[in-house]
């Protein structure tokens, strides 16, 4: 859906989405990295299970919720990526212990 502009010279950062490595850049938020990658980042809602992707990218809508390093329901659009970060796409309600 999105591509990177060629002038972007930021150093690469590798994160994992459901175990699969994807290439992000330093300074990306988790949501930006997901949308720039080709992975299917659709979560499903806790209410009806409907699919969603980030909507506002500014911390307002909570449609970017993801599990980051084992902690569920984090706003991906507010969290910067870090090398080796483990991201999981959430399906439905937050799981116990996550």
């Amino acid at each position: 859906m999105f591509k990177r502009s060629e002038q972007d010279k930021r150093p690469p950062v590798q994160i994992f989405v459901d175990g699969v490595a994807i290439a992000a850049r330093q300074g990306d938020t988790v949501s930006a990295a997901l949308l720039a990658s080709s992975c299917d980042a659709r979560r499903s809602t806790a209410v009806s299970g409907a699919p969603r992707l980030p909507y506002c990218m500014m911390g307002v809508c909570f449609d970017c919720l993801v599990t980051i390093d084992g902690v569920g329901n984090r706003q991906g659009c507010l969290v910067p990526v870090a090398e080796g970060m483990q991201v999981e796409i959430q399906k439905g309600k937050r799981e116990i212990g996550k």
Partner: protein
Amino acid sequence: MRTDYDVAVVGGGLLGSAIAWGLGRLGKRVAVLDEGDITKRASRANFALVWVQSKGLGMPAYTIWTVQASQAWGRLASELKQQTGLDVSLQQNGGFHLTLGDDEFGQRAELVKRMHNQNGAADYKMEMLSASEVKKSLPLIGPEVSGGSYCPLDGHVNSLRTFRAFHTGFKAFGIDYFPEQPVSAISKSGGEFKLTTPKGELRAAKIVLAAGNANQTLAPMVGLSAPMGPTRGQIVVTERTMPFLPHPLTTIRQTDEGTVMIGDSKEDELDDRTLKHSISAVMTDRAQRMFPHLARLNVVRSWAGIRVMPQDGFPIYDQSETHPGAFVACCHSGVTLASNHAFEIARMVAQGALEPELVGAFSASRFGGAGTANNSGY
């Protein structure tokens, strides 16, 4: 505005709604007068337990009344479902009160003993369980839980959906709901009550005052009294999470939607606009000691509600001697007692008199002028 009603119910909270719905169910022509969008409304702020254990110390009649309500709730839920299609998610598979540390366990055990020793109270099988026994039902408890009390009659419900179901049911019963019409004066003449609201006057043969703490000022207009001692309660709620709590607790419950409610403080404060985070902190700290995995959940909201609380903590149901046809009803546990209000109180109002053998103990005459200490079990 129609001005001829069999009954006008003042107050559209859980109490007024249950009674009005019950009267509509009996074919009465009912009007409900209520305030508007922003008002102190315990019916929107409560913890939604249908709760029996520890209720009624000092007044056995209250225990009996509560047990009866708990037993009638299933019928209420199914009638509402049938009428409105709304499932109020009643769950009555027993509830716990958990204790942290030995002192709390000892205190709770003492209370259970006193309840059992009270003469005349219904036996509702409240018992103390050790931590390992609790763990069989609630596997996720933490190491600090020393045990707790359990009562098989306890349960909970989705109280907001119950509220909506009553109001949806109004339509089917032809009940007129008038929001934004607080009652400022009541008089009786020619065998009829006249209620003054900002939008005019409404006339009814009977009235039921169910205006929560405002009953204190409305009741004397018709020769009744309702001495109130409201308290404030704070509640914290989390985001939705997978089901983990198969039974409700006195202070933690998981709603059918998946959110976790953590309650509830009891403060003398009466301002529901500000919150004390330090109090929420005590509540959430205790919650995470009971269930350590809760620590990571996000809190999405907290709020304060003002409890409708008669001075001694027990319900008030009364009828006026000077103004026949005027009734007053107020109590704290409007969720638990909703079934009794819908079936019993409505029936008695419809027939024109409260039955002393059922609700005589709840007359405000018990206050005899002076206030009494609250020891009802909250």
